[in-house]
C-alpha cells in the first residue's frame, strides 16, 4: 500500500494530528515547525535539558528496521520533552513470533501509549497503524519502505535554512540512489512546498525512477551539468541492502562518476553546503575529506534532528485534550 492521501494526518478542525508524510502539508505548517525547532535548539545548551511539555505521556519507538541516529534522536527528543520513552526493535518484538504489526500496536496501545514513532520496511506502515488507532493516539512516520521519511526531510530543511536563510533563491541537487530513497521523496516534497528555485536529481539512470520528474524536478546523469550553480548538495546513501539486481556497475566506477569529491564539488557554488542523511558509505557516494570538510553540515543535521523532532512531537501532541474532552466540556 503506497498512501497518496495525507488527509488522515489532520483532525476535523484541520490541525495536524499525525506526521506521516510531507506531501499535502501547507507551507505554513512547515514554517511553523521550523520556527519552533529554532527555540528548541537552545535547550541542548541548558543545565537542565528538559521541558515538561510531554510529562506523563508515553512514547513508544517502534522500529522494525535498524536505525542509529533516527532512533536515538527520537529517544532524546522524547526525553527532553519529559515523555516516558520505550524503544522496541524488531528482534525484541512478538512480530518475530508471528504477531501482525497491528496486533503489536494494539497491544501497546492497551498499555496506554500516547505516541508511536514507527519505522518499517513496508511503504504505508505508519499510515496503516494511524488508521487503526483510537482518536487520541498519535503516530509519527520514522521511515516507511521507499515511501517517506518526513522528519528527516524537516531536519534537512532546518539545516538548509540555518545556512541559507531563504529558500526561494536556492538550487538544490539530490544525488545518488533516489530509487530506494524515502528521504529523497520527502525532501522533494518539502523543497517544493517551501518554494526553492529548482531541484535537480542526479544519478545513474538505473537509480533514478522514471516517475520522479512528475514531482517537479529535473534529472540528469551528468555530475558536471547537475552541480552547476548549486547551493545545496544532498548526497544519498547507496542502499546496497535493498538492491537485488545489478544497479551499479562497480563501487569504484560508481565513486568515479557520482562520488562527491573536492574536484566535483568545485562545479557547485563556492558557498554550497554538503548534506547526507547518513549513514555514509565513505569512498562510495562521498569522499572522506568532503564528508569531514568545512562545507559539510552532516553532523549539524544530526544535532538539528533532536530539536526538529521535539518541535514535531510538540506540534501533534499539543491541544490533544481538547479533542479528547470535547464531549465533556
Amino acid at each position: 500500500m503506497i498512501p497518496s492521501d495525507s488527509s488522515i494526518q489532520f483532525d476535523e478542525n484541520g490541525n495536524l494530528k499525525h506526521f506521516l508524510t510531507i506531501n499535502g502539508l501547507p507551507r505554513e505548517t512547515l514554517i511553523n515547525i521550523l520556527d519552533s525547532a529554532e527555540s528548541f535548539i537552545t535547550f541542548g545548551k541548558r543545565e537542565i535539558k528538559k521541558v515538561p511539555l510531554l510529562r506523563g505521556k508515553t512514547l513508544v519507538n517502534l522500529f522494525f528496521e535498524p536505525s542509529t541516529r533516527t532512533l536515538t534522536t527520537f529517544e532524546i527528543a522524547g526525553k527532553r520533552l519529559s515523555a516516558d520513552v520505550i524503544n522496541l526493535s524488531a528482534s525484541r518484538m512478538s512480530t518475530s513470533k508471528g504477531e501482525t504489526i497491528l496486533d503489536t500496536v494494539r497491544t501497546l496501545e492497551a498499555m496506554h501509549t500516547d505516541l508511536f514513532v514507527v519505522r518499517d520496511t513496508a511503504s504505508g506502515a505508519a499510515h496503516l497503524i494511524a488508521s487503526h488507532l483510537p482518536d487520541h493516539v498519535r503516530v509519527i512516520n520514522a521511515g516507511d519502505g521507499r515511501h517517506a521519511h518526513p522528519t528527516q526531510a524537516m531536519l534537512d530543511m532546518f539545516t538548509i535554512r540555518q545556512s541559507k536563510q531563504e529558500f526561494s533563491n536556492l538550487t538544490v541537487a539530490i544525488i545518488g540512489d533516489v530509487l530506494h530513497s524515502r528521504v529523497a521523496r520527502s525532501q522533494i516534497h518539502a523543497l517544493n512546498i517551501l518554494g526553492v528555485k529548482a531541484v535537480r536529481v542526479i544519478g545513474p539512470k538505473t537509480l533514478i525512477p522514471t516517475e520522479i520528474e512528475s514531482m517537479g524536478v529535473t534529472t540528469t546523469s551528468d555530475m558536471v551539468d547537475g552541480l552547476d550553480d548549486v547551493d545545496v548538495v544532498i548526497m544519498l546513501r547507496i542502499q546496497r541492502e535493498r538492491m537485488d539486481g545489478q544497479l551499479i556497475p562497480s563501487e569504484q566506477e560508481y565513486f568515479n562518476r557520482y562520488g562527491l569529491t573536492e574536484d566535483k564539488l568545485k562545479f557547485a557554488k563556492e558557498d554550497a553546503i554538503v548534506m547526507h542523511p547518513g549513514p555514509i558509505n565513505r569512498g562510495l557516494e562521498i569522499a572522506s575529506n568532503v564528508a569531514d570538510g568545512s562545507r559539510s553540515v552532516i553532523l549539524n543535521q544530526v544535532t538539528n534532528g533532536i530539536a526538529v523532532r521535539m518541535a514535531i512531537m510538540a506540534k501533534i501532541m499539543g491541544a490533544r485534550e481538547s479533542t479528547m474532552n470535547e464531549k465533556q466540556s
Partner: protein
Amino acid sequence: MSSTDTSTDTSTDTSTDMGIDIEQTIQGLAEQIAAHNPANPILIGIHTGGVWIAQRLQRILGYSEPLGSLDISFYRDDFSRVGLHPEVKSSELPVAIEDRNIILIDDVLYTGRTIRAAMNEIFSYGRPNQVKLGVLIERSGREIPIQADFVGCAMDQLDESRQVKLTNENGKLELNVIKIGANKTAASKTGAPG
C-alpha cells in the same frame, strides 16, 4: 499573561483606556525595587509585555548585569488544552543565575499561572539565591498562591469579563482594558494564565 492574552479574539469587543500614566507607574515600581536594594541583581522579563517593562526598569535602575528574558511557552500548564504557542521566542538568560538575586518582571499578574511557569523555567537554569516578583498591574483572580513583591498599580475592581492588555506602538506603551464576550470568559481565562 503576556503573549497569549493578546491572541484572544476581541474583534467585537470594546476597549477602554484606563488613564494610567504607564511611565510614571514604572518609575514607582523602580523606586520600590531600588528601596529593596538587592545585591547585584538580575532583571528578567517575561515575554512579551514583561520584557518591555523590564527594559525600562533596567534603564532607570542602571543595573550592570544584562537583562534576561523568558518565553514560558514550554512550561505552560495548558499545553494539552491549547497546544504550543505558534510564535515561541527563545528564552535568554545571558548570565548564570546560580546563587543570584533575581527580580522577575511581568506586565499583569492575574491567575498566577504564568509566574509559576516562569519560576519552573528559571529553576531549570540553576538555583538562584532569591526570586522577587515585580508587576506593572496586579489584579484579582489568583488561581494559585502567588503574590507580587513590587506592584506598580493595583486593579481589584476588574471582573472576569475584563482583560488587561499592554501594547507597544513604536516604543509607546499603552494599557487597555478590554471587555471579552461572556461566552469566551472561561476559555480566555484558561487560555491566558496571567
